Every structure is written in C-alpha cells, then in structure tokens.
C-alpha cells in the first residue's frame, strides 16, 4: 500500500544520500521524493512516497528514525493529510488544438505559463489522479515535455470537532 512519509532532517550536505542510501540498501521503494528547507533554515523537509506492506512501512519509519540526521518522521497515512503535486507540461498546439488546450486548462484550473505559436506550457497542481487525468487529455494534442515535482504533503490540523474530524475528508 502507498504511504506518504514526512521526514524532517538536518539541512546539511550528505543527508539526502543517507536517506536515499537507506532505501536502496534495504530494498525499499521510493516512488517520489521532494526536499526543501523549512522555515528554520537548519532543517529540511522531505516528503517520501513509498509503498509496502505494514511490516515494511514499520521498518522504513524505524530505519529513518535511526538515521542520526533525521529529526522527525511522520507516516501521514496514520492521520488525515493534504497532498499536492505540480506538473509542468509542454504541449504542441496548432490551429484548433489551441482552443481545446485552453478548455482543458480551464477545466483543471491549470495555468498557461508560457506560450509560443506552436506550444503552450501548462502548469497544473493537484493530487496524482488529477495530474494523470490532464495528461491523458493533453496527450492526443502531443506532449513535448513533462516534468513532475513528486508529492508534498502535510497533516491536517485537527481544527474541527472530533466527531467530524474522524470522517473521511473530501478532497478539494
């Protein structure tokens, strides 16, 4: 099962390779990984999307915690969380396709961030299913280039009354 693990680490050289080395050395799977400094510049936040059965995920969390440069590990699947991924997609657009592309951009609340007579560069953000969906729709027009950030995620604040909080939170 897919898990999103949020890892707070020391912001210093070599930490990424320690984390990556842990995954490769123990045969764990990384589907995506994103890293950036936090508000406190001495720390970085990693969001790791991984998968495995219960015991593997338990080992991943424990092994991450064991790394000396890791300050905090949260398996977000144990709580409610929100996650987002951004994709930048460069699409071939000619004649009638340009209007079709803009319609799709509109439907997905995406943005055109660059434009040439024959291409649009589209930025879209959302959960992976939404990204997959827009890619599928744009594909017939001809995708020239595609980059994705991998997911970032954060736990939801328990701001609402407990009874409501336990409900599955609708996305968006």
């Amino acid at each position, binding site marked *: 099962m897919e898990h999103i693990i949020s890892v707070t680490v020391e912001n210093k050289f*070599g930490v990424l390779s320690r984390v990556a*080395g842990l995954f490769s050395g123990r045969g764990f799977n990384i589907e995506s990984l994103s890293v950036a400094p936090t508000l406190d510049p001495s720390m970085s936040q990693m969001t790791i999307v991984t998968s495995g059965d219960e015991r593997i995920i338990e*080992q991943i969390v*424990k092994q991450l*915690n*064991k*790394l*000396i440069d890791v300050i905090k590990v949260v398996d977000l699947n144990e709580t409610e969380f929100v996650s987002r991924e951004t994709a930048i997609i460069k699409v071939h657009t000619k004649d009638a396709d340009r209007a079709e592309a803009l319609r799709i951009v509109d439907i997905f609340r995406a943005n055109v961030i660059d434009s040439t007579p024959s291409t649009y560069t589209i930025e879209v953000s959302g959960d992976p299913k939404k990204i997959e969906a827009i890619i599928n729709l744009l594909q017939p027009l001809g995708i020239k280039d595609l980059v994705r950030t991998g997911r970032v995620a954060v736990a939801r604040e328990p701001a609402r009354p407990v009874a409501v909080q336990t409900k599955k939170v609708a996305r968006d």
Partner: protein
Amino acid sequence: MKLTGAEIFIECLKREGVKTVFALPGGVVLKIFDTLYQQKDVEVILTRHEQGAGHMAEGYAKATGKAGVCLVTSGPGMTNVITALADAYMDSVPMVCFSGQVPTSLIGNDAFQEADNIGLSRPCTKYNFLVKDVNDLAATIKEAFYIATTGRPGPVLVDIPKDVSMAKAEFTYPNSVSIRGYNPTYEGNKWQIKQAAEAIMKAKKPILYVGGGVIFSSASQELLELAEMTQIPVDMTLMGLGAFPGEHPLSLGMLGMHGTYQANMAMHYSDLVIAIGARFDDRVTGKVSEFCPYAKVIHVDIDPTSIRKNINVDIPIVGDCKTVLREFNQILRATVNGEQKELRKPWWDQIQEWQQAHPLTYHQEKDGPIKPQQVVKRLYELTRDRDPIVSTDVGQHQMWAAQYFKLAKPNRWLTSGGLGTMGFGFPAAMGAQAAFRDRLVLCIAGDGSIQMNMQEMATAVVSKLPVKIIILNNGFHGMVRQWQDLFYEGRYASSYLDTTPDFVKLADAYGAVGLRVKKVGDLDAVLKEAMATDKPVIVDVPTYPYENCYPMIPAGGCNHEMLLEDPPELKKKQVGAGKVTPEDKDTVLTA
C-alpha cells in the same frame, strides 16, 4: 593558545581516555603521525595492513567495552579498512576510525590517493563526518565517540583533510553532546515491562535467548540474577557467548545453525521466548515461518529497528538490556516463589532428556588423526584457569570453538558474527592483547582464514603482542568443504587449499615461535609449551580434514530438524592425519 589540527586530534584522544591507536601512515596523515611521534600519552601500534588496524580496534573494543580507535590514510588506506568497518557495524562494535583525506581544495578533483571516504563508508558506519574546518574538529571528535559508544554501539568515521590537520585553532573540548536527531532510549516502557514480567511468571516453557547486547550493556550480572531466580534456561547467540557462564547448569549453550541440540529444541518448543539484546538473525531463526511456533515473544533491544524486523514480537521493549533486566528483576523478586520451579519441572525434565539424547559429540581415536574438537576441548581445559580471551576467524573452527570453549565471563569472546569476516581473529586478538598486556589471548583459526591477515604477525612481533594462534589445519576451507559434501555432491570447487605454507617456518620467518602437534598424544605438551612462551606463537595442528561440524540446521531449515551426524552416503574412508595430499583427495572423491 592555538593548536594544529593534529595536536587537537591527540588532545581529544587523551580526553576520551584512548591509550592505543592502531594505525598505518600515508601522505595526507603525515602531520598527525609526526605529532603522535612527539608525544608519549597515546601509543601507536603500526599495523601491516589497514584491515588489520580496523580489526585490532574491534578486538580492543570487544575486550574492553570502550571504543577502539584506528587511523588510516586516504584512498587505499580507507578502502582497506572498509571490511573492518562493515564487520563492526554488523556486530555493533564501538569504534572510531580516523581517515586522512586530500586537502579540502582538492576534494572532488581525483587527486592522488583520493577516495570519497564519506560515500564509501556511509553504508557500513553508524555515522560519518568530513571535517572541513579545523575549528569544528574537537566538537566533531567528541560527537564521534559519543555516537560510537551510546545507544546501539557502532563504528563512526571521521575524515580529516590534510590541510585541516595542519591548520591551527583554539582548542576547547565540549563537556557534553546534544544531537537533536539522536536520543537513544535506555528506559524500557514500564507497562510493557510489567506485561513481560507477568508473561515470565506464567510461562511453562520459557527460554532466555541472549545476544551481544547483554555484553555491550554489561548486563551479565542482571541476566544471571534473572535466570537463577526464575530457573529459566539460557540460550546464547554466537555474539552472546560469555554473557552467561557457559558451564552454568542453566546454560544450554549456543543456539542456531551449529547450536547445541538442547538449545535449538528448547527454542523450538518453548512457549515464551525472552530475547535480550539479540536480533533474530537468519542463522538463529532458520525457516522464519516455522520459527518458535508455540511461543509468545518478548524482545528487549535498544535498537527499535531490530524489533519486528525478522519475526513478529508480542511484547516489544525498546531499552538498554541492563536497565530493563534490572526492572524485570525488581518486579520478579517480589513475586517469584517456589511455584515457578514446580510449574517448570516438566520443562526441565524435557530439556535434560534432550541434553542426554544428543550431547555434543565426536570420536577421537587414540592413535587416529587429530580431531579439531579435541584440540579446542583440550585448549579450553588447559587454559580455563587463566581466564583467557579467545578470538576466532570464521568457519568450522569458529563453530567448534563456540561449542567447546565455554566462557565464564563476558568480553572474552572475539568473533565475527554478522559479517562473517575471515581474517578477523588474529588482528582482533592483538587488539585485545594491546589492551591487556598481561592476559592470555588465544586465537583459534583455520588454515584458510589465518592467511587472510597473516602479515600482522610482523606487528605482533614488533609490538610485543604475544598472541597464541592455534591453527586447526585441515587443508581446506572447511565449512565450504562441508557444504559441498552435504549439498553439492562432494565437488570441492575451490575449497581445497593445495599449498598451505609451513606455518612453523612462517612463524619462524617473522621472528615468532612456531610449534606443530604431530600426533594427538603430543597435543597437551605442545599446547602447554605454547602457553608458557612469552612471544607470539603459532601452533599448527594438522587435523582430520573431513570432520564435519554438527549439529547443523541446513540453511532455510527448521530449528528442530538438525543434522546430527554425517548422512550415511558421506561416511568417508578415514585418511591419515597431517596435510591432505592430492592422493587423499582423490580417494575421497572416488570413494
């Protein structure tokens, strides 16, 4: 006053109580060696190979319980010490390795003798540091010793570029260390401990399964109290030997692939496994799906990742063995009474039945070839009064040593468990001897493994480390040969050593003493002569080449299904003692 990086290095070692450094010089560490040369507080033992330096530091650490220290140069110095780091990492040995590095300005330029020491050592160290600024050196070394010796111990590497060892800085040594991502748990969870104590009280067939963690946390006394109070039998892992007295009536000996019959049977049929500082290695569990099918499992370990890594655990307790055992004892002291003994009588009857049915056994003919077990047994009986430290290499001789050399106390057993490093034994013994100059230090080795670090004999002679090496010389990589006989239809692919050197002459060439046992009747006299010598000694004992080590659980087999003797198709024609000749080999192959 400002000190150079090299001076700071030595000041830090002194603050950490380091008396001995196992080292081999090279271009980028010359400043450090030059500074070491001009002082008397820290002794340098010059090894002949960096792997030797690493294993010596390990032996020193295992025998003293303190961090062992080695110092190597960049590039090949570093790559050579990797095996020792990996070994120490697997066996949780506290050790700090200092490596030289090319000057910071050249790092990444493929400079002469440059290697990515941090990258190379990352998967085989608990942590590693590259010191880029001499002002950080003292604090880094403090952290290195702190990380190496606390929590689950392990090797730490400190990489020091040449310019850092030469630059100057104000020296201040921090009093304490605080690392926000590193806070080992020493106190076990109280509720879990209570649950465990209750389970111990109720169990009808409990077994203590203890490992190296008991030794590193100095918890032998607490373990002894627990076992005696509750009358629970004790199984030791290879790394745990010595944690509990081997001759104690509650000791069932070593468990696992070559463990005793009673140890493995008791484990398999127990209803409560109390694992203390052991990690359910595959050499212990055998087939995981059929491991301890009737038991609840309590697992005490300071490393949370060890728990539920290989097998499911009912009562996990993350904490230091000593602290947790004390709490067990405190609770149990108030509750234990005669009832447990009564409750467990059938269990002990059963264990004694197992013990009597299949004790460790071998057959030594009076005039026949020398059996390796006989050598270990006599060595044990002749030296036990001197409370020796014993090291081994890896293979058949190691397992026989584990079976027949019954250690009474912890920190006497130096062996490579997790990584299984041939060539470990001799340098490890030297490291222990460097820490305890007056003690008797034995190295039980095979003729294959001793050759992997034979060059250190020069170190032993020059540095006056009078280790006694007993080579069980069967002309083979014996364990490989055993597996080939059992599982590869006796095809001895690269296990026959053909030309083994004359170890007596070799010892002589190094300026050490070489002795040979020619027949079994001479064994005692030669061993006694060796023990009475104050120089390093090699005792070459040609042993029966086709002796197999039993009991044996075939890899992936189940713990109660042990091979106890050679299968009928393997009964071999007895060949003479002494060096195996190709003719012997042919007889066996065609037999």
